[in-house]
């Protein structure tokens, strides 16, 4: 992990780190990468199928039915800024 990659990662994740934090984050990356080397020591993963879900449940679907449970006013009670029923952000240029 280097500063240039880190700068890109910050942008990608909408975060802005101080110089001190950057050193800290790089230490975290280095530690995780060192950890990860253990994996290759123990396992050959080449022919192993990935496992996203730990339990063998398939095809969880629901009927196409409309249920209205929430009102706009309640949904916007935690909102920093609303106007005429809309959430608001600074003007986005298209």
């Amino acid at each position: 992990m280097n500063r240039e990659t880190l700068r890109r990662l910050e942008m990608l994740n909408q975060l802005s780190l101080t110089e001190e934090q950057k050193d800290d984050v790089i230490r975290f990356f280095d530690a995780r990468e060192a950890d990860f080397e253990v994996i290759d020591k123990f396992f050959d993963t080449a022919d192993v199928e990935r496992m996203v879900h730990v339990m063998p449940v398939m095809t969880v679907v629901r009927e196409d039915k409309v249920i209205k449970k929430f009102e706009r006013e309640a949904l916007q009670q935690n909102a920093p800024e609303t106007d005429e029923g809309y959430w608001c952000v600074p003007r986005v240029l298209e």
Partner: protein
Amino acid sequence: MRYETVIGLEVHVELATDSKIFCSCSAHSYGAEPNDHVCPACCGMPGMLPVVNRRVVDFGMKAGMMLNCHINRVTTFDKKSYYYPDLPAAYQTTQWFAPVAVNGTVEIDTPAGKKAIRIKQIHMEEDAGKLVHDLREDTTHVDFNRTSVPLIEIVSQPDLSSAAEVEAYLERLKTLLRYARVAECEMAHGTMRCDVNLSIRPEGSTEYGVRTEMKNMNSIEAIKRAIEYETARHIDAVENGTEVLVQETRRWDDVKGKSYAMRTKETAGDYRYFPDPNVMPVVIDDEWYDSIADSLPELPEVKFERYTSEMGLGEYDAEQLTRSIALCECFESAVEVCGSAKDAANWVISEIMSILNTKGMTYDMLTVNGETLGRLIVLVRDGKVGRANARRILADMFDDATIDPEAYAEKMGFIVSNDTGLIESVVKAVVAADPASVAAYKGGREKALMALFGKCMKELRGNCDPQVLRVVLLAEIEKA
């Protein structure tokens, strides 16, 4: 040098389900109050978990089959991350690793004959919300009604080579998806949107040139103009070195008739896809697969062929009917009841289509039941209800699909009277009251007869066999 244009399309189609893809909010966002069809899940609040709407998978499969795709029997959902105010969770749940359908073809007509456009894949995903920029100068307003409305994205191979082919392809997609009743595909409503990927290359070359993408095109006319413009711009750049082409996303300004490079962030396109741990794989077993395969409609050209050769309709009639699956279905069930393709076609084309047009409804919105229409046709043919009254019954059937034509005719007093005594007395009175028209007719003016006929029919409230009335009327004029 001569160049050919190489075009691939990514077409987004909103699926015609009642509820959203992962939550139970209404999926009909068009025309709703802002943020009225929203719940904690589709406005990005924590805690609700996605559960897939079964009909979205039905429709995804159906679309895949209509486009001759291979259906992936295990299909999975993935998360795609990026920040934009119309994406409340900052990720979109889509299909990256195992889309519902792959490797299809769509055949289009070109001046050079049929051409097969290959489909790379169809994947199911959630739509984003809508941004409104014109309410306040410094602010963008965000509406999440459309968030999580189900979409399919149909990705073609770069097999299209002109604006005309793109138009034919989009029209064909519309027809197929509307026939399968999976989508409205109305660009003006935003239920069909299109990204155009375009490059040029010397004719005969197999290499691809620098590709540009125009996003979110929403009218066929604009797409055609944009393709012409971009093609010219690319050729100019290559031939005359007017600019250096770069792979980029561009915006088409249809008013100015120009495309512009969009300002993109350094991190654009870095989507960090990964499998969604909260959505289990969807396994399509044989029973499910077959039930969808069995529900596929006959294609419009097959219907056209059957209507003209087997059912004896003229080409014009067959063409009109096959414009919509709803018209076809209404027509076909009406024929089953009344036994006459010609009568049924007449009623659907000259009555039903014009009522739909007057009401500003699309043909696909037809709710009149073909079986009921068939019974109404029989009533007219048997002389039990006059044609004008039958039209009134039909108009009412648009508002109330449960109307039973016989009972309704009875209730409305539309049953034709066979009481010749009544007809004769009405005719006598009308003729006696209008000697001028009688004289005019006798003087050779055919129109005068129609006026008298109309008056009699009105007096009889339409409940009279027109043939009988005509005979009685002529006899009475003779006597006068």
